[in-house]
């Protein structure tokens, strides 16, 4: 088998006394789509944020494409990377947020072109061309000149995906990309993600969308209370879970689905600045 694109070894993270990640091990291979499932507070979002260093880890190591994230190993002693080098590492990783986080003062086109031009220093003309193609790809070819607040949530999230893709990342992280959307807007976003998965993008997706996990994921990781409880193909973990905690979670989630309820409406944790993330 080829080298893993991401390899997390014994990753731990605490917010004060609250230990959120308790030794996570995970390998993701190029082209794989991995979904992280688990109840609120299980640490899946925190783990995702640790991968591109929006949180600094307290223990363990995370390697992306062979690079140690956040540190430089000089003869066995770790040195924290400068802001500039951290930024350079993040360029390789695209991230999509629960609340989209589009830049409200920029048009859709400017949102997409900002980083390729300002960070990668590419020519605006060619970036603009590419941005239009990306907008077509996410089904928003006619929205280039709009401001984010003129779009629906689902459209904003698709722009956010296009914005991340404009940096040609090796890897895409999705942090509950459909949790803040009205139910009828979820489908369009999932369709874009499905296409992306088919095109061979390596993806880690934190989600409550069981259908997405079932149909698209190569591997499902079930987390609870800061540890990885169970890992496997969706056909095993979702159909025939080995652990009681996984069974409990799945029965709760599927009960919601059968109620005609929508999974994405599981009351989700919305982050407020200053509080520890879950």
């Amino acid at each position, binding site marked *: 088998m080829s080298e893993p694109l991401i390899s997390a070894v014994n990753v731990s993270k605490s917010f004060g006394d609250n230990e959120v990640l308790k030794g996570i091990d995970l390998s993701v291979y190029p082209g794989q789509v991995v979904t992280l499932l688990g109840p609120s507070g299980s640490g899946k979002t925190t783990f995702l944020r640790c991968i591109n260093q929006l949180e600094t880890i307290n223990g363990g190591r995370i390697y992306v494409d062979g690079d140690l994230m956040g540190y430089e190993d000089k003869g066995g002693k770790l040195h924290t990377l400068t802001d500039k080098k951290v930024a350079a590492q993040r360029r390789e990783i695209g991230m999509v947020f629960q609340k*989209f986080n589009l830049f409200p*003062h920029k048009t859709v086109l400017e949102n997409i072109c900002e980083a390729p031009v300002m*960070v990668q220093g590419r020519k605006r003309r060619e970036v603009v061309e590419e941005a239009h193609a990306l907008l077509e790809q996410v089904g928003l070819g006619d929205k280039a000149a709009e401001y984010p607040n003129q779009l629906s949530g689902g459209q904003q999230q698709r722009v956010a995906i296009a914005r991340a893709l404009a940096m040609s990342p090796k890897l895409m992280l999705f942090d509950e990309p459909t949790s803040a959307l*009205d139910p009828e807007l979820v489908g369009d976003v999932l369709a874009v993600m499905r296409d992306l998965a088919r095109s061979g993008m390596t993806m880690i997706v934190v989600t409550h969308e069981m259908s997405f996990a079932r149909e698209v994921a190569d591997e499902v990781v079930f987390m609870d209370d800061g540890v990885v409880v169970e890992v496997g193909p969706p056909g095993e973990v979702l159909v025939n879970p080995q652990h009681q905690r996984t069974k409990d979670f799945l029965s709760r989630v599927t009960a919601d689905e059968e109620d005609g309820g929508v999974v994405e409406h599981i009351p989700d944790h919305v982050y407020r600045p200053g509080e520890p993330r879950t």
Partner: protein
Amino acid sequence: MSSDPSSREARPGKIDATPVKHPGRWVAVAVIGVLVAMFANMLFTNEAFEWPIVVDTMTNEPVLRGLLIGTLWVTLLAMIIGVTVGVTLAVMRLSPNPVLSYVAFVFIWFFRGVPRLVLLTIMGSLGVLFQGGMDIGIPFDYLFFNLTGLDGDMRFLTLDANTVFVGVTGGAIGLGLSEAAYMAEIARAGITSVDEGQREAAAALGMTPSKTMRRIVLPQAMRVIVPPTGNELMSMVKDTSLLGAVPVTNELFFQLEAIGSRTFKIVPVLTAACLWYLIIGSVLMFGQYFLEKRFNRGYGTRVSGPAPATDPESSQGTPA
């Protein structure tokens, strides 16, 4: 039921109701009307106003020069100093570097605490502190020459404090630094008002913290910073009337007062002062309106473009 054609006749139609009456409003109009009439009557009949003299002093040549140099030019210089230093201070104050943060705090503490009139008077007297002039060069160079027994110095430029800190430059620096302390607090409020998610999104795209500040955070903070800065600008125009303390004589109020004390026409001269400050203020309010419109792009209710298929996420854009 409602599809029954017979009931369609009875369905209520257009509303034609009598509006609520507001007798209180009419009373208020009457009272205020009488007061305004009394005031206008006084303006035109009271001999002390001497309107021809008001117009005359307003367009008097030294007064106009004072308006241009002491009021408008110093306001411009002081606001440029105030905004640039103020935004820098705000960024320092919010910096994770404790030294920068504390230095900014001390600066703000000092310049917010000392009244502008006192500050301007101090600026005019700084020459006493630097009687030999201010040298620019390597600090503590005399220690090196004392130790080595060599002769000479490492100073490249000597400025005369009496010329630097007196007059328009001194006044603009004094008012500018005082303004910087207030602008720092305004800019800090603006920066902290920007959602943390914006910084995270920029970071995730590989932007460095300084680029994120310049490209993403500050432009959004401007929306919060501009309206109170308009107030600050207005205050600055008025506070240039303190410049006499430096002293700056080429200043609107100083010149008008001088005419007043020479001719004893106090009321017309003060009226002229009020009118000039009101005219400047009106122009500034007009300008602020357009500036706010510029920085509100992408916020609040949409102004153009086709309506989206569904309601936009109301949590994303705060109403203007």
